[in-house]
Every structure is written in structure tokens, then in C-alpha cells.
């Protein structure tokens, strides 16, 4: 099952995606593309892993961490599939980060590694944009880098966990304007899905809808207003996003 949320006639509606990739309401009505807005498919706490691929750690000249390096995002930053992310004026380096996102399916506290996968409800795709100009060495990466309005596309939908038999062997790809820019595999995760669920649940209670962005492999590049950025996790989904200028963003408000 693939579950999503859309904005239809100014109302948030839960939908599913059928085998023909059509959006279907709970009443069974098919909604035509172009008549609605994709919303983030989940609501909850948003955890993100920094430096969770060995190749990416090398790219950033960091050594791989001894324990998961986790930061949080606030919900203002999440947007759905096929939406626009704005690039602030006067910055030099804004890059995408294609990530497998784990969605928690049931309440989890102090869960063992062995049982952790039972708490995974499904998966989706996240694009964890960063604006590196704003990095500072306090609570790094800070909210100004990672929690900006429109800066975290997620979706299009959640695919049930049982339809992703091996989350640790999925190819990750990012395309800018059709050109492949980033490629990796979740088999290279430093801390894998059950480890992350178990680790986070040892700190706090996880609840359905909580998201774990599992990190990104190497292959980062700057994006420009007008770019179409597609992030894809094999067997999970294809998430599209378009970069716009700050001026265009402000006039859309």
C-alpha cells in the first residue's frame, strides 16, 4: 500500500496510490494530476542523520562517527512532492541530499535491535537540502542550514514496510535537470535502519509518523533557481522538486 496526503479544494485528504500510479481517495474517487497539491505524507518528529555514509564522510573530510550523529528538523521545513524550494539570495552553496526516510508505524520506547524492524511502518523519500553558507560550529548543522521554510521535500507517499523487503540494498539517485549527479546505495549506511530505530527509542518515545532521514551518500552539487531536482530511492519512490529564487518565493507568499 502507498499512502499519501494531498490538498484538494483547500482540504487535507488522505489518499492511496494505485497500481496505475493514480491518486485515489478513501471513497474510491480517482483524482487527476494537476488538480491538487501534494502534502508531506507524514507528521511527527523529524530526525536526520548526518554523515551516515562512509563515502560522504570522506567527501566532507570527517571520520565516520562512533555513534549516530542525529539532528532534528522543525515541521515548517517539510513540503510535499512536486513543490518549490526557495534559494536565499546571496549564498554560494546550496545542495540536495537524497535520503531514504524511515516512517515509524507504532509507538517505540527502548526497543531492542532484534525487534526494531517491527516498529517501521514504511518508507518514503526525503531531500534534505542544506545551505552550507550558514553553517556554524554550534549545534552543527544548525536550524538555519537545515530547518528553513520549504527546504525539506518529502514524499510523494509512504510505501508500506512489507513492500520493501530489503531496505539495505536500495539505489539512491539524484538528477538535476535530468542529469544523474548523485548515486549510492543504502547498503553503505554506517548505522542501518534497525540500529537507528533502537538507538533513538533508547533516548525517547517514538510515535507513528515520526521520520528518520537516514543520511545521504556522496555526490553533492550546488543547485540554481530554475533547476528541477529529482531524488529517487529504488523501490520506494521518486520525489520531484524545483528550485526558485527568493524573489519569486516572496512574491508567492
Amino acid at each position, binding site marked *: 500500500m502507498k499512502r499519501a496526503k494531498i490538498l484538494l479544494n483547500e482540504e487535507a485528504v488522505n489518499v492511496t496510490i494505485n497500481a496505475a500510479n493514480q491518486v485515489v481517495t478513501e471513497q474510491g474517487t480517482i483524482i487527476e494530476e494537476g488538480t491538487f497539491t501534494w502534502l508531506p505524507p507524514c507528521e511527527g518528529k523529524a530526525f536526520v542523520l548526518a554523515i551516515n555514509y562512509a563515502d560522504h564522510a570522506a567527501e566532507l573530510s570527517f571520520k565516520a562517527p562512533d555513534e549516530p550523529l542525529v539532528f532534528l*528538523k522543525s*515541521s515548517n521545513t517539510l513540503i510535499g512532492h512536486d513543490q518549490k524550494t526557495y534559494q536565499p539570495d546571496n549564498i554560494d552553496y546550496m545542495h540536495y541530499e537524497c535520503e531514504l526516510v524511515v516512517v515509524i508505524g507504532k509507538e517505540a520506547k527502548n526497543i531492542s535491535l532484534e525487534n526494531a524492524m517491527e516498529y517501521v511502518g514504511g518508507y518514503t523519500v526525503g531531500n534534505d537540502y542544506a545551505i552550507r553558507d550558514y553553517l556554524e560550529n554550534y549545534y552543527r548543522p544548525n536550524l538555519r542550514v537545515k530547518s528553513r521554510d520549504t527546504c525539506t521535500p518529502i514524499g510523494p507517499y509512504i510505501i508500506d514496510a512489507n513492500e520493501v523487503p530489503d531496505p539495505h540494498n536500495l539505489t539512491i539517485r539524484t538528477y538535476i535537470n535530468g542529469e544523474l549527479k548523485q548515486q549510492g546505495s543504502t547498503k553503505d549506511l554506517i548505522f542501518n535502519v534497525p540500529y537507528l530505530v533502537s538507538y533513538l527509542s533508547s533516548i*525517547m518515545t517514538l510515535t507513528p509518523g515520526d521520520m528518520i532521514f537516514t543520511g545521504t551518500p556522496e555526490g553533492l552539487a550546488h543547485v540554481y533557481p530554475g533547476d528541477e531536482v529529482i531524488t529517487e530511492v529504488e523501490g520506494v519512490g521518486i520525489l520531484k522538486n524545483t528550485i526558485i529564487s527568493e524573489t519569486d518565493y516572496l512574491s508567492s507568499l
Partner: protein
Amino acid sequence: MLYYKTRKNDQVINLQAQAAFEVPLENNLLPAVNGAVIGVALNDKTLYQSLEKQFNEKPHVSPPKTPVLHIKTDNTHIGYGDTIQIPSNLGSVFAGPSLGIVIGKKACRVTEESALDYVQGYTIVNEVSLAETSFYRPAVKAKCRDTFCPIGPWVVDATDVETPQNLTIKTYINDTLCHETSTNQMIHSIEQVIAYISSFITLDVGDMIIAGTPLRTESLEIKANDVVMVEIEKIGRLVNPVAAE
């Protein structure tokens, strides 16, 4: 006017009162707000001065250029009278008395001059934390444990708080006054904090900013079986028992 929340038959009830004595504190209240909670770290003069030397050394290299923010996730939020649960094996746990700034209308890119127009009112926060051994990486482990953010008992309407930047904050542990500070110790003012955050995060109605917590010295350490009370002038008292997790 005071705004507070209770639960009845699994429904959240929003209530108002003219005076504190009208609020039935014996029924544990819900956290006084239910939106996103963003804290401003290093926003206390004494705390900042105590670390100033380190800020020029690795890994920080240079002092912060912008207010340092963190997130207190929903699982941390508890109401008046709810129990703060502390782990037994992770070292000292500290109370974090602070003013809570509650947003009353959607704030996107607001100026310092207009910032107070977006404030519904003020509440009391106890931003509980493990020892803050480093400010280099996000403090998820230290700050986001379940029950680590009592909020309440209510939100006092902004019109009833004439000088929010000059309110005495007292912390009592087991009825003994153990710490005193004031909102006049903030480095970035209420207006500056709202303007800065809203320059890239749209704040919604019900979102709250934790204005700033003091240096966590031994006097703020809390232990199982303590009762901790944070009192802010013109706002009220937030009382929570402490128990082992």
C-alpha cells in the same frame, strides 16, 4: 487573561480564566501550548561569559554569529504537576528555568519593531537537560528525553505583562529558593529572537520560543523525589515532581 488546557474524555479542552485562583491546578493540566517548541541556547549573559574563551577554540573556532537554536520535541512536553522522569545512569540532570514566548499569529519574516504584535502571551518553561558538555553538535540526547520540558500552567495574555524583558525568575527545589535570574539577562531580546527565527522559520499560532536558560550549576540539579518549581513574576508558578525513569 489566562489560557490553559485540560483533557476530558480524550479531548483537549481549551479554557480561559480571569485570575489564577480560578484554575483547578489539582487536576493536572496539559502543556499550555501545543505547537512547535524552539529554544534559544547560550542566550544568558552569565552562561555566555562562562564559555566565551572556549568559543575561540576548537571545535567552535569563533563565537556564534547568530542565535543558537534547538528543538524540544513533543515527547518532552508535559503540563503542570506531571512528573519529570530522569535516567539514573546518565549523570546529573538540571532544571532550565525560562520564559516561554507564545506566538499568537502567523509570523513570517517579521521585523524587530513589529515582533511583539505576534506574541499571544507568555508562559513558564522548565527546559530540563542532562549536563551540557558540548555546544558543537545538536543536543538531542541531552534535551529530548521524554518529560524533559514542563510548560505551563497557563499562558498569560501579553497585555497583562507590561515588561516581559524584566521579569524575575526564581527556581525552588523542595520549597527552597536555589536560583534566581531575570529575563533582563537575555543576550538577544524577545523581539530579536522572534525576528531572527521568523526570518527563515514561519512560526504558527501556538508555537513557542524558550527565551533562554541560565548556566546550569549545581544549584539547578534535580534528583528523584524532588519537587521543582519555577516562578516567573507576573506569570505564575510551574510545579513538577521528579522521579527516577
